[in-house]
């Protein structure tokens, strides 16, 4: 690919996203969180696990937001702002990794299933149906019981489940495109199956693919938050859900509104941002939505 083409593609994507206010809004939020995740150590004023003391020398337990602790402190005297910043990193990493891996799995299954049809299609789709039946949290519990708690198991558990919807949807789209005459033309011109799937069909499902990438990342973030809220995350890697878990077991959920507010708001913001961006791609995937 010529650099010029890459530039062209990037520009067209920026244009797609910024076409609407919500797309721009979503993009800005993502960029914000991305930067926070990237520069976490530089931005966080304190260590996430450090028990802090107030100016008077007492342990800063459950302090509401103040100039000293902008977002307040936890039951253990830890700075919520720092915790938030480090958690962003965890969330972004898990969200991106699990999201991207799951879309890779889902897209390929969808493409192969849709293109080849027949027995391959049937077996892949039956497999997808089985995965549909699998509940996320129990699966995660089993993994943790077997292998112990780790960031990676959370990612694996998410990947195992989240791909299923994208597989279905991409298969449907592939089926539709496969019928079109330019695919027949490609076959007649001597293109191998591999080439047809990845050079001819894939570019045509790209908007849908990007849409579901955004969804997958959003679902991964939510899955992770749910898992950590229930206490099933890696204790060494704090996330927003994990912060809420700590809040929950401390019993102070009714009183420490700040401890509750910031993680929740951020989860909502991040997921919304992803959905907004996906909305922008949805219009490209389905042009009829453009007409009001």
């Amino acid at each position, binding site marked *: 690919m010529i650099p010029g083409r890459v530039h062209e593609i990037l520009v067209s994507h920026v244009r797609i996203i910024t076409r609407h206010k919500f797309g721009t809004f979503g993009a800005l939020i993502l960029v914000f969180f991305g930067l926070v995740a990237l520069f976490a150590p530089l931005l966080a004023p304190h260590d996430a696990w450090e028990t802090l003391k107030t100016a008077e020398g007492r342990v800063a337990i459950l302090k509401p937001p103040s100039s000293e602790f902008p977002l307040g402190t936890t039951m253990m005297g830890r700075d919520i702002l720092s915790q938030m910043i480090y958690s962003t990193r965890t969330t972004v990493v898990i969200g991106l990794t699990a999201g991207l891996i799951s879309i890779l799995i889902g897209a390929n299954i969808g493409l192969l299933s849709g293109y080849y049809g027949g027995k391959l299609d049937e077996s892949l789709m039956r497999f997808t149906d089985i995965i549909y039946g699998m509940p996320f949290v129990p699966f995660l519990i089993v993994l943790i019981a077997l292998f112990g708690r780790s960031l990676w198991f959370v990612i694996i558990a998410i990947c195992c489940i989240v791909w299923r919807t994208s597989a279905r949807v991409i298969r449907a789209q592939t089926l539709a495109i496969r019928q*079109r*005459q*330019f695919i*027949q*033309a*490609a*076959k*007649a*011109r*001597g*293109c*191998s199956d591999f*080439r047809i799937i990845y050079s*001819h069909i894939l*570019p*045509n499902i*790209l908007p849908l693919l990007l849409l579901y990438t955004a969804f997958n990342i959003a679902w991964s973030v939510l899955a992770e938050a749910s898992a950590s809220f229930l206490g099933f995350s890696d204790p060494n890697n704090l996330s927003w859900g994990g912060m809420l878990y700590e809040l929950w077991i401390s019993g102070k959920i009714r009183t420490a509104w700040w401890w509750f507010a910031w993680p929740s708001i951020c989860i909502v913001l991040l997921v919304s941002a992803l959905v907004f961006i996906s909305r922008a791609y949805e219009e490209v995937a389905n042009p009829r939505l453009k007409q009001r």
Partner: protein
Amino acid sequence: MGILEVEKLRKHFYLNPGFLSRVVSKKKPSVIKAVDGVSFGIEAGEILGIAGESGCGKSTTCSLITKLLEPTAGAIRYKGQDISQLGKKDLKAYRQQVQIIFQDPYESLNPRFTTFDLVAEPLRAMGIAGKREIQEKVFSTLELAGLKPEEYQNRYPHQLSGGERQRVGIASALVLGPELVIADEPVSMLDVSIRAGILDLIRDLSVRLRFTCIFVSHDLSILSNISERLMIMYLGKVMELGTTRDVIAEPLHPYAQALISAVPIPDPSYKRPRPNIKGEVSQPIDPPPGCRFHSRCPQGIMEECGTVDPPLNEAKPGHFVACHLY
């Protein structure tokens, strides 16, 4: 021996009735005999027209020749070699030599590819490496198709008119230098004032690039103008085959006679003789024995018409008919 020989070609599609029908009324699967015993040959360098209405099997025959479909029975021999037994390498060589121009200029081009990529794709798919070689070939083919490369190479299909798109389609079919080109209704979806240009292009290029052409169309007016020999199909079988002049001026088969007399003429003063056939055109599903045209034929009075399938006989030199009258 011509460049292509088709012998007793058959393509049957099976329709499975529902589970209940199968169990309760013991219904057997229906058969769509899209192509049912087609035999013909083409000489190198000629333009053979295949005419027929929808459901006659002409498009299926094209798909069988280009190996987009595999036959149920029968043989297709290209330059003497049976193409059903081709290994991967031979298939590649075959595709290089036998190409197809599609009907719909709006659907046969990948909307995400530029004109350059569309014409280069066959070269890339075949592994003809070398950026420079590809560019040379693409440019020269675009020129042959009447499109200036500098102007068109970066345009996407949605930026082209119907006629331009079809030229790109033609270029992508010809870039590999095929010896047999199948044109499947290449002008049916184009405006009238543009058709002549594309027809001329195909005709000129078939001479310049020395390829044989099978031109499929439902429009006999177009075929009368471009094809040298004409084959008329009905419900999966060949009804008549001969030089275009012979078939159009003196059609022998009742179906051909009806078809030709039904073609409207762009001349208000001409009073067309009315074709005399009854019934609706049927689907080639579970056809009854005997001549396919029997139920609608105004002259189908002989006993054989309803029981025996008429073979394709040479009624006059070079003029073949599948009818018991001959």
